[in-house]
């Protein structure tokens, strides 16, 4: 199964100190537009006891290729939820195609498990492209945190 961790959860892996870790409950996994891969992701989540949602509705049964093709063709977001955990399986990352992000990924290790993570440059650029208030807040805070860490002054052009 292919995915890359994106969003704040991904950016956190590049933190060099706990002070640069942003609190988030969500994990955003960017998946390729491949129904077989999508279906595999759902089954892994289900095996882990997570519930699958699409919009306000349960994803439905059966989890099969027909359903996966419908979700992928609509680029719909599927959310997997469990105790203290929310995983968004997204087929969209603003300004980026999956294969480009995949080619620049970094693979980190968490408790012995390999986790593919989008490059910090891609995560930051995607947040800048979307520009929701929460993205603006993250970028400003992240910039400030890096400035403090690296002891440098930054100019902002927005």
């Amino acid at each position, binding site marked *: 199964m292919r995915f890359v961790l994106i969003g704040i959860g991904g950016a*956190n*892996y*590049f*933190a*060099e100190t*706990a002070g640069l*870790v942003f*609190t*988030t*409950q969500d994990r955003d996994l960017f998946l390729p537009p491949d129904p077989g891969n999508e279906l595999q992701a759902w089954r892994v989540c289900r095996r882990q006891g997570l519930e699958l*949602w699409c*919009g*306000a509705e349960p994803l439905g049964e059966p989890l099969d290729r027909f359903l996966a093709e419908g979700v992928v063709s609509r680029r719909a*977001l599927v*959310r997997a*939820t469990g105790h*203290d955990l*929310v995983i*968004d399986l997204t087929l969209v990352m603003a300004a980026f195609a999956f294969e480009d992000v995949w080619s620049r990924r*970094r*693979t*980190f*290790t*968490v*408790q012995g498990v390999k*986790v593919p993570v989008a*490059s*910090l*440059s891609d995560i*930051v*650029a995607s*947040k*800048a*492209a*979307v*520009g*929701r*208030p929460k*993205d*603006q807040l993250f*970028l400003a805070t992240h*910039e400030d945190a*890096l*400035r403090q860490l*690296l002891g*440098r*002054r*930054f*100019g*902002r*052009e*927005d």
Partner: protein
Amino acid sequence: MSSRKRPLPPDPGAERALRILDEIRRTVRLETRPVVLGDEYLRAVKQTEASSRNEDGADKTWVERAQREFREHYARARRVR
């Protein structure tokens, strides 16, 4: 996108705050606009990526542990007044 919400404790203060936030959400238009990132910020991002602590295979277990501890810490928070 919505999903099941965790039930909130029966706290009149919290309920009032949520009503205010709902009102703000209905009436205030949030501005979404692309952000132009400064060159120095982008250089710092590259510098961070190039750090030896962020090489392929680096162990990031501590990041997950830190996040869990943050969540547990804030979950224990109680209003004092």
